């Protein structure tokens, strides 16, 4: 009798957490986000290639800016979310914050990788070199290493509470460190001025407008991916728990 009750109870729990309610809610939010993102992407591409003014100095490749900046920004945002979720996890001890952190870490890694690649290509067009040790690109590289370190730590430690806690600590420390790293590289750079990847000076309003559209689009993409990965983490945890309860 005890065994039967046990099983029904767990099934009920599973139904409550990841059952009909959640799976019905998921597609709607995801579909809306995906639709908005797609529309945004098409609008952005149109604006970037047809409407945006051509830069007098750099010419055509300067338009990489319209993708590079949002992608970098999302990489930073993802790190901020990771840090916030990490603090929340250590404080509340609710594993859902850990799912959030993991999701944001994975997405952030992807975006920062893209930021590095686009930044490198852009630098190549402006300065002729594939890499320059300027403050922004270097800090992006260090951030990439921190992201990779985070993913490796999670991979090695598995899906345990210890893994979540240690990773949360890493996230917090990394977040505090990044501004310091940026400043120190900046100071270092002033001694040996490096070619800088970026558009110096004030930007004309059309440029800012198009940049904003692109930024919003990528933020929507980030939200969409976050929802997907969060659900992925949740489902994975559910499956793992259910499987454990079998034994």
């Amino acid at each position: 009798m005890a065994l039967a009750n046990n099983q029904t109870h767990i099934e009920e729990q599973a139904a409550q957490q990841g059952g009909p309610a959640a799976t019905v809610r998921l597609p709607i939010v995801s579909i809306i986000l995906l639709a908005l993102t797609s529309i945004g992407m098409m609008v952005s591409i149109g604006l970037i290639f047809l409407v945006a003014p051509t830069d007098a100095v750099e010419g055509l490749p300067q338009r990489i800016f319209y993708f590079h900046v949002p992608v970098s920004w999302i990489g930073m945002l993802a790190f901020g979310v990771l840090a916030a979720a990490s603090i929340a996890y250590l404080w509340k001890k609710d594993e859902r914050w850990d799912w959030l952190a993991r999701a944001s870490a994975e997405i952030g890694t992807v975006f920062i990788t893209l930021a590095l690649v686009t930044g490198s290509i852009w630098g190549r067009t402006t300065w002729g070199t594939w890499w320059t040790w300027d403050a922004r690109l270097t800090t992006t590289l260090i951030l990439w290493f921190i992201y990779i370190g985070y993913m490796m730590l999670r991979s090695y430690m598995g899906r345990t509470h210890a893994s979540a806690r240690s990773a949360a600590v890493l996230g917090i420390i990394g977040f505090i460190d990044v501004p310091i790293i940026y400043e120190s590289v900046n100071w270092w750079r002033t001694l040996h001025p490096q070619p800088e990847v970026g558009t110096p000076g004030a930007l004309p309003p059309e440029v800012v407008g198009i940049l904003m559209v692109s930024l919003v689009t990528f933020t929507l993409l980030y939200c969409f991916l976050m929802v997907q990965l969060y659900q992925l983490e949740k489902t994975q945890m559910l499956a793992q728990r259910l499987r454990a309860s079998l034994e």
Partner: protein
Amino acid sequence: MQGINYLIAAYAIVWLGLLIYMAIVMLRIRGVRTELAAVEELVREQHNNATTINDNPTPKY
């Protein structure tokens, strides 16, 4: 002239990268859902086994 090559390369990389990543994520979600369904099936089976045993309890002395 070379500039436009780099421009197209950069955008192509970003697009392909993101699309491939989204595809990977969708595949993973599908995989986990299948696994969850399988485990739920196992749980139901065990539940049924348990109840059928209880329907015909062995006599207690």
